[in-house]
Each structure stands twice: as C-alpha cells, then as structure tokens.
C-alpha cells in the first residue's frame, strides 16, 4: 500500500532534486530545493501565449484579495475604538489610534468574563502538550506499524484508520458524558488527552517511515547488535524529523483552533482556550449589552491568529513541499 502511494514521490523528488537536470526543461529561475515549482514544463510547450499568464495572474490577485480581506479588516479595526468600529469605514483607519489601549485591555478581566492573557497561556499549554504528545505518539505508533509485524498489527492499524471515520462532534458529547463520570470536566487533561490521539498523525508517520527509513538500514543496525530503542532514537528518528515537523504543525493547529471540545468540557473561564473565550466575549458583547467588549473581540482575534500565521511562515517548507499533506491525499 504505502510503497505504491505517491506519498513517496515528493520525498524521492527531494532526494533526486540535487542531481543535474537536462537544461532544456529547466525553468529560467533559481531553483529552490524545497519547492517543487522549480521543475515545471515551460508554458510555451503547451502553446500558451504570454497574455494568458497576465490574465491568470490577475485571477490569482483577485482571489488573494478575497483571502486577505478579513485579515486586513481585523488589522485595521484592532486600532479603533468601539464607536469607530461601527461608525467608520471598515477598510480605513480612524482617529483616535487605540491599538495599544485595546492591547492593554487584553491583560484585564473584563466584566468578570475572564482574562485574555490567561486564555492565551491556556491555549499555548494545550497546544504544546497536546500537539507535542500527538507527535510523540504518532512517531512511536507510525514507526511501529511501518517496521514491525506483530500479531494483530494489521487489524490494529485498520482500527486506527477507522477512527478517522468517526465524526468529532459525534464523539465529543459522549466524551463529555464519560468525563462527567471520571471527573475530567474542568480538568486540563480532559482537553489534552484527546488531543494527543491523532489517527491522521499515526497514518502519516507510518507512510513517512516506510518511505524515509530504509528497512535495510535497520536490518544492518540489528546485525551490528544495536538494540531496538537505540535504532529508533539514533537511526530512525533523525530521518523522520521532516515528517514529525508536519505532524507537529498540523496537531498544534488542530488544538489551537479546537472549539467544540473545550466549549463543552470547560465551565470555568480561567480554563478556557482563546477560541472559547473569544466566542463568549462575542456573545456577551452582542446579547448582554457589554459593547465595550467589541474592540477586545477584534484585537483578541488578531492576537489569536498571529502566532499560527507566524508558525506557518517559519515552517513553510514542511507544508509547502506538501511532503505529508500530499500523502493524505494519495
């Protein structure tokens, strides 16, 4: 299954990319090792005119504007007072410039609904422990499934895949009811433990291990008398790093953006992650007349998305090369 998947192709392409290519097909632009785009067939080969490029670039610009519109709006409006958010044009700045004032309010407990700074800390904690745990478990499980054959390993793996089918919302309420029995309501572990279970991560790491950790290498190490743990930590793990980074990225995003689970299991606002806190503020601002919360919802939303966008830009070679996103698809 896994050797046939095209999952291997981006990875293999990565290793062969260093080899010189025939100049005829080479695009006239500096090639970037992590960017498969450096390998394209020149558009003249398709019989396209240069004008087509202009038109299609324009289409891309339009969609980029659509994509960036809400981001631009939230950046601009985080600098506004409550009145100006409603009364001035949404896509231009207005006096007074109250970005720093709004920002300072994030450290305060507004109307007893909770403090943004606390939620930010909670979210970071849940994301690091949940995302980190998910990555560690996926590494062990994925490597285990890829390189060991044991009784029931096939069935166990199919069970993991089947877990992909179970809808999250259908599992969340049952989870809540179970938590009520075992006293995990309002416990951070109620949030972190389920976040550490990622069938996608296990699947990805299995596929990635098949491709990037050669069986012969492990067999050779075994002949040399290396122990299994030593083989895993010293030999396999370094080779699995790019895959693990992608799993880490995806699971951190998953935890950071999770809303339904924390919404249901936390009833104390000091435990909320950002999503639940912002949702609460938005609801209170609209329905309880706490309109001073509106600027906080806006700046709070902005501060929520900045760390993740930064993370994506820093780690872009992992998702851009599509190393693993592509393997889900194939």
């Amino acid at each position, binding site marked *: 299954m896994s050797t046939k998947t095209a999952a291997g*192709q*981006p990875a293999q392409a990565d290793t062969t990319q260093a080899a010189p290519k025939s100049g005829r*097909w080479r695009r006239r632009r500096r090639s970037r090792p992590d*960017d498969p785009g450096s390998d*394209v*067939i020149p*558009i003249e080969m398709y*019989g*396209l005119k240069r004008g087509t*490029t202009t038109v299609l*670039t324009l*289409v*891309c610009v339009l969609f*980029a504007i659509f*994509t*960036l*519109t*809400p*981001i631009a*709006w*939230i950046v601009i*409006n985080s600098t506004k007072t409550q009145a100006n958010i409603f*009364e001035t*044009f*949404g896509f231009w700045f207005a006096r007074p410039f109250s970005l720093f004032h709004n920002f300072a309010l994030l450290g305060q407990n507004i109307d007893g609904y909770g403090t943004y700074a606390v939620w930010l800390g909670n979210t970071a904690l849940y994301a690091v422990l949940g995302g980190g745990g998910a990555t560690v478990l996926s590494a062990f499980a994925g490597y285990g499934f890829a390189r060991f054959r044991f009784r029931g390993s096939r069935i166990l793996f199919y069970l993991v895949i089947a*877990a992909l*089918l*179970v809808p*999250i*919302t*259908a*599992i969340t*309420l*049952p989870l*809540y*009811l179970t938590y009520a029995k075992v006293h995990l309501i309002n416990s951070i572990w109620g949030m972190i433990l389920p976040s550490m279970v990622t069938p996608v991560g296990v699947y990805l790491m299995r596929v990635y291990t098949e491709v990037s950790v050669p069986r012969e290498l492990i067999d050779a190490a075994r002949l040399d008398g290396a122990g299994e743990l030593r083989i895993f930590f010293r030999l396999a793990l370094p080779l699995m790093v790019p895959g693990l980074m992608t799993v880490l990225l995806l699971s951190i*995003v998953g935890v950071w953006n999770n*809303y*339904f689970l924390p*919404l249901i299991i936390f009833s104390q606002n000091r435990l909320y992650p950002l*999503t639940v806190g*912002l*949702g609460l503020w*938005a609801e209170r601002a*609209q*329905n309880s007349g706490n309109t001073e919360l509106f600027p906080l*919802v806006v700046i709070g*939303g902005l501060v*929520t*998305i900045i760390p*993740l*966008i930064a993370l*994506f830009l820093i780690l872009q070679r992992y*998702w*851009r090369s*599509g190393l693993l*996103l*592509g393997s889900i*698809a*194939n």
Partner: protein
Amino acid sequence: MIAPLGYAIYTSLYTSRIIGGTVFTGAGNYTETLQSGEFWNGVERVIIYAVIQIPVMLAIAFFFATIFDLGVAKWGTLFRTIFFIPFAVPAVVGAIMWSFLLEPQFGPFVHFASAVGAHNVNYFSPSLMLPSIIVIVIWEWTGYNMIILYTALKSVPRDVVEAAILDDTPLWKIILRVKLPMVRPAIVLLIFLNTIGALQLFTEPLILSYFQPNAISLNYTPTLYIYNTAIGGAQYNLAAAAAVVLGLVIVVISVSSLVFRRRGGELG
C-alpha cells in the same frame, strides 16, 4: 475512543427525570430523535450545504492548483502562501471577522453591494444565511484543499505530460483527460474529508447566531441541535441518542463515498 461511544449508546437508552431518577427507556430516545422534525431539518440543511459548498470549493481549489502546477501565473509561491493563510485562522475568529464584514447595518460588504447597485442587502436574512456560511467556509478551506491537489498534481509523472504534448494534445485535454484522472484518488479523499466536516457544521453558525440570534435557530444544524439539547436543555440522554444517530448518518454517507472509490479500483 471506543469507550465514550459505548457509554453514549448506554446513556442514550436511559432517561433522567426530575422525579424518579434515571430510568431505562430503551429505544425511547431514538424514537424521539428519529421523529424530531428539528433534528432532521438540520440534517437536511447540512446535506444541501454540503452538496453546494464542496463542489464549488473543490472546483476553485482545482483551478488554482492547476494554475500553480502549470506555472502559468506569476508569483505562484507567494499566492500559494497567501491562499493557505486562512487554514491557520481558527473557525471562531474567521466567523467573527465575517460576522462584522457581512453585518446588515454597518458591515462594509453592505456598502460594496450598494456600490454595485444592490441596496439594503441583508446577508443574514433567512435566504442568504446559508450562502453566507458557504462563502465563509470556502474562505477558510480552499487553500488547504488547493495545496493537497497541487501536491497530487505535482506527482503526475512528467513524461506522461510530455508525451501528451508531443501528441499535440490541447491543454484543456491534458488537464481534464490526463491530469484529472491521475489525481482522482486525492479528489475522492477530499470529498470524503470535506463531507465529514460539512455534516458536522457547527462553529460558524453558532458564532453567527451570537450576532444574529433571529437568523439561526437552536437546531440550525444537527450538531447545534445536539449541543443545545445537551448543554442548553440538559437533556443529555436525548442528546446522546442524537449524537449516535448523527454519527451513523455521517458514517453511512462517508463510507458510501469510499465504496464508490473502491469500485473505481483505486483503494490503497
């Protein structure tokens, strides 16, 4: 994962009463769920939503993935990064931003509509609410789907495409007859994943309902129904039954897309 599910089925067979405690009611909660118009209205709504949202989003994603794969637009790397950004934005924040942008009185998009001659558009009216949600979700997820399709397109062997070019195959034929079939497994899987997601639609309508309480009912989607029945109404047993039924509906619909895939001889 299995334990909570088992406990949900167990819970769903009981009913808590204020007087008399919890009693075994067997299939009672299921009968109530299955006969609940509110529940099925929600199911119907998310199916309509999925049937529109998924094809539109995948068409846009495939269009851009093809453009970037062929390299026929400038600054492809930059555009791919921009298109992917909404994936990093939590659905809660995305829904909050769009709630402001589409707000009927002061939202800038109402001004835009007026500028092109459509006055007093209410994006949150009953008839436009679902299309608005579709736009929001398309904004959130197109980039992610595009990246996956782009990666799949990249793995189409070069020589196949070069052979087609040498045969003087027109470009649209190369795209639709050569490349599209080769990325079909990726598309089927995206349909599958997006369907599971669409049927669980929850965050966007819940946040929008904070801003527009009259436009979104407590049972707008099945997941909202479950949430409001459990948390709002404290009818945990009934909600557990509804969760089990919804889970089954989703599994049936998504598995049938996998069976379709297997029939195409493309599994694994």
